[in-house]
């Protein structure tokens, strides 16, 4: 388990390095921020001065090396457009994004699992059809469109929730729902099919044959259905983090998605890189969490049969049975 985690961590670091490198060079392939930052009537000499100020006059490999050195010490560099350290922007941005993504995720997970399980336990009933219809809708409606509809209904017409921003506690409701819809539908569908499959398995038949209470049976089925759902949930959470761009824009949510758009438009190299790095770190962390969850949920991962020797357990044998009858 630990070695597995360690390998994952190392893989994450390599992926991070790779992504940083690609982004570093790709971002610099199509022009820089000089023209954006210089006054329109700047002379070529003044443009050069701006370029020096931005540190873009040095050979690209030197810039790259400096950047990597900074990274090792945790320095993400300085935003050329906002003129503040990148971490000052990315950290609060990621906090806002994470808040939105996590709330949306919890919403999607709880409701998705509940709806999916309900549909499976009541398969081929109106409840099931209803859940399936909602799931198809949830997966096919674009999130920004859903967001606009929610705002039109719940903000403009009913006045229940703010139309945007994160000023009040209820501000998060509409963006979180808009963001969660797709993940909710995906989780509901997967839960439904997994539970359905689980219900027809020997395991469930055997559990039923015990005559246990329905609640006990449901717990068994749900726990066993949780593994593929956890995998999907991890993927969906990652998708939620990137999906926030559209929703943050619509709901004026001060997250990292909005920051990314600004950074790209402003050719703010350090900021773009900083956002990519923080995003990658979040992904790595998510993969790690999924792995740990897997271990917690599945004893086969936590205690693989092969490593049983570690605890030095006496080997169990069948008691010798008197000479068997031959047929």
């Amino acid at each position: 388990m630990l070695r597995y985690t360690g390998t994952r961590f190392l893989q994450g670091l390599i992926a991070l390095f790779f992504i940083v490198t690609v982004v570093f060079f790709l971002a610099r392939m199509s022009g820089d921020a000089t023209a954006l930052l210089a006054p329109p009537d700047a002379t070529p000499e003044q443009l050069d001065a701006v370029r020096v100020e931005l540190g873009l006059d040095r050979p690209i490999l030197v810039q790259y090396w400096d950047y990597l050195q900074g990274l090792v010490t945790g320095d993400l560099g300085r935003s050329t457009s906002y003129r503040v350290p990148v971490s000052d922007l990315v950290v609060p941005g990621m906090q806002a994004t994470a808040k939105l993504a996590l709330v949306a995720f919890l919403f999607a997970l709880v409701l998705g699992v509940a709806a999916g399980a309900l549909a499976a336990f009541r398969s081929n009933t109106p409840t099931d059809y209803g859940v399936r219809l909602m799931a198809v809708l949830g997966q096919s409606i674009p999130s920004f469109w859903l967001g606009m509809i929610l705002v039109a209904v719940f903000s403009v017409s009913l006045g229940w929730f703010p139309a945007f921003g994160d000023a009040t506690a209820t501000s998060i409701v509409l963006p979180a729902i808009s963001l969660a819809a797709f993940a909710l539908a995906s989780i509901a569908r997967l839960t439904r099919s997994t539970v359905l499959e689980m219900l027809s398995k020997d395991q469930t038949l055997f559990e039923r044959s015990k005559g246990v209470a329905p609640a006990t049976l449901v717990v068994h089925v749900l726990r066993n259905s949780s593994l593929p759902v956890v995998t999907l949930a991890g993927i969906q959470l990652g998708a939620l983090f990137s999906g926030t761009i559209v929703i943050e824009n619509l709901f004026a949510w001060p997250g990292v998605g909005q920051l990314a758009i600004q950074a790209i438009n402003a050719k703010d190299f350090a900021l773009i890189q900083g956002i990519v790095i923080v995003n990658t770190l979040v992904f790595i962390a998510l993969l790690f969490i999924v792995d740990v969850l897997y271990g917690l949920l599945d004893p086969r991962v936590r205690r693989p049969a092969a490593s049983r020797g570690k605890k030095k357990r006496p080997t169990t044998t069948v008691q010798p049975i008197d000479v068997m009858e031959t047929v």
Partner: protein
Amino acid sequence: MLDVKNLHTEYYQGGRVAHAARGVSIHVPQGQAVALVGESGSGKSTVAQSVMRMIRPPVGNLREGIVSVNGIDVRLCTDRQMRQVLRNEIGFIPQDPTTALDPLYTIRSQIKEVLPEEDKRNADQVITELLESLGIVNAADRLGDYPHEFSGGMKQRVAIAIALAKRPSVLIADEPTTALDVTTQVGILRLLDRLRRERNLATLFITHNIRVARLLCQHVVVMYGGIVVESGPIEQVMAAPSHPYTRALLDASVLGDRPRQKLRAIPGNPPSLFAMPQGCPFSPRCANATDQCHEGLPSEVATEQGTRYTCWNPVAS
């Protein structure tokens, strides 16, 4: 005591009806073991599941007949009453313990779930004793282990422990040894035989291998296409089978047959449950079949040896 009379069980699939059991009758007295023998699709597992009432609408239905477990007709039970029957009366041993045991729970918690209230107070001790009586040594150390940490034979002993922890009067074993290797098979069969005797269990032993059944059963019921084709004391049936299908089964089986292997000596396939032949279900594959066989079923014939069969042209013995 398990008493099944004239059981008709159906499955529903896409608007079609599959007649999986058509008038099946089986009687298992206390302390006796009855083998229910047949190929896959013969309806033998349907009978076992009907007894536990696992077949419920919309999947299927026990349309007709009496399924009496110690005098309680499971067809008439409410869900709650049925759970009581399953908890108190019926022990079930699955075909493959690897797929039947819950991989996420320790064996302690899986056994504990079925313990009667009075045993729960000192559950660990009860479970340990039970497991040790089933041939698992150092059971006390292994209560916290998970199914994947046991070998196949050990897992089946755990499954048997779950079946027995309820202190049932009826034991249903659905091909309990097919997933195991030959040496382990015999051990489990011996164990089941011992338990039947010690605990006076009415045992319904479902198998496709009639020779395996002989190791622990006194009676046999041979099923084909949802009907009972032959039944009677197992020694007599094996010595002098009347139905051509029973004959073929005997010819085709040896101890240690691999699971789900087709019977080599019987040409063709069992009929589809959705398209049963009008007459004897075995007639399309039967060497003795006459026109009569394709048209209708004869009534059951009793022999002097105490066996009964359903056939127009029985095998000359």
